[in-house]
């Protein structure tokens, strides 16, 4: 099932990336993401997983291969991107930060408000619309960043280790909320992380990557219940899944 998705939204065909200084960041990477899928990309630091995400987003051109949308189109679809840091404009409050993509698209404040308020609310930020980034905690800033990525209703949401800098308690909360968000909206998500626990908790399928030059070592389905909450973290199934993925990651890194 995972090997041949019925309708891939995005497919990476023989992607490779060699930097100008000669470093080979990506070997040869092939994968497909179907619409509505929650895909994890798991690998050690420096394995090129961020580079892969940037290529899919169109922020970096690949040295080899192509990214194909809906079975052949090379024009990228609507993308939401969440960086490792919240990457907010410090001079703008939460509302204004979430408005940014719509503002750049020429949508008036009045019309944008109908989309910004639900986006803020869905991340628990309804009370914080007028708060400036410096007044928010790290976790709340990341919530604003995710709200900004969601406000355009992207076809593909790309997240590049968004919770790596947060404390564990905050990260768990955000994982639960992100999973619930995905269940509600059924958006297509590619989530890059170096945490086995995070990738297993969040996603339905995990690509395990080898160290530089990055290639895909394994393509693993995550067979856990649809609804994932705090209780799942303590369940034997979750532990077993984490164990299985950890083993495959250890093989890939060795």
């Amino acid at each position, binding site marked *: 099932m995972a090997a041949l998705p019925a309708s891939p939204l995005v497919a990476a065909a023989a992607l490779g990336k060699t930097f100008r200084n000669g470093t080979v960041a990506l070997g040869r990477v092939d994968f497909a993401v179907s619409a509505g899928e929650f895909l994890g990309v798991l690998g050690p630091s420096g394995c090129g997983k961020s580079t892969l995400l940037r290529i899919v*987003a*169109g*922020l970096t051109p690949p040295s080899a291969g192509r990214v194909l949308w809906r079975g052949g189109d090379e024009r990228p679809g609507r*993308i939401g*991107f969440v*960086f490792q*840091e919240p*990457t907010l*404009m*410090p*001079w*703008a409050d939460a509302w204004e930060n979430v408005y*940014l*993509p719509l*503002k*750049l*698209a020429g949508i008036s404040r009045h019309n944008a408000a109908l989309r910004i308020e639900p986006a803020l609310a869905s991340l628990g930020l309804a009370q914080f619309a007028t708060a*400036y*980034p*410096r007044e928010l905690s790290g976790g709340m800033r990341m919530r604003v960043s995710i709200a900004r990525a969601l406000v*355009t209703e992207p076809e593909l949401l790309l997240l590049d280790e968004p919770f790596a800098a947060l404390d564990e308690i905050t990260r768990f909360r955000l994982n639960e909320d992100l999973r619930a968000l995905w269940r509600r909206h059924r958006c297509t998500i590619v989530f890059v992380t170096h945490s086995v626990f995070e990738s297993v908790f969040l996603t339905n399928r995990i690509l395990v990557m080898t160290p530089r030059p990055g290639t895909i070592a394994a393509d693993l389905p995550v067979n856990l219940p649809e609804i994932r909450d705090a209780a799942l973290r303590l369940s034997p199934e979750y532990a077993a899944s984490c164990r299985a993925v950890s083993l495959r990651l250890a093989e890939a890194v060795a």
Partner: protein
Amino acid sequence: MSAGADIRAPSRLARLVAPALVGILFLILWEAVVRLWTIPPYILPGPLLVLETLAADGPGLFMALLVTLRITLAALAVSILLGGALAILFAQSRLLELSLFPYAVILQVTPIVAVAPLIIIWVNDTFLALLVCATLVAFFPIVANTTLGLKSADRNLVELFRLYGASRWQALRYLLLPSALPNFLVGVRISGGLALIGAVVAEFVAGTGGTETGLASRILEAGYRLEIARMFAALLLLSLTGIAIFAALSWLTRRLLAHWHESALAEED
């Protein structure tokens, strides 16, 4: 007050009182020296005499100050427009920056006293000539700082703008300009002081001729006549003006950055 005990965090009061005390002590010493050694006022007038002179000549000196202030503020305004525009051009095109920046540096390092006579010869209108001189002194910090600020926008934000298909104008208006605001304001604060210095230097070179002349001419005149107390009074006015300009621009900086910038936050609490 435990102001003396805790050196790392002096209280607000100590911050005002300590320098004021030093100033008062210095003035008392100065007055005492002048009286004890009976130094004639055409060598060194005491602070009391300077104050008397300031009171007596106040209106005249104040009119001269207004002339100097007019040049200073005009030069600062031109520097802001010119410097800001140049910095934006530089940020748009690396080639343009490479070609023009060295000349901005040359203009900056050439001593204004050496160039001022030429400018005064070339430019007929005195006000305009002085304005050109003061602007030459003042515009560089704004160009340099704003250029730096425009280039230090958060790289991820730059990419985000690209991802959302922002036009060049949108990226400038919504990202680069706000990012550069703190650096721009640093430049403006430095330029404010330099504009005053530039205006006074230019007046010195231009000499005492003409009817509407600034404080520098008053200082020159007083020097020729050995009215040293008047010189001191004029100097005092100049210093106070410089301080006022700096304070006003600092206040403006804090106001504009109050919501978000670290520098403003540190001074806020």
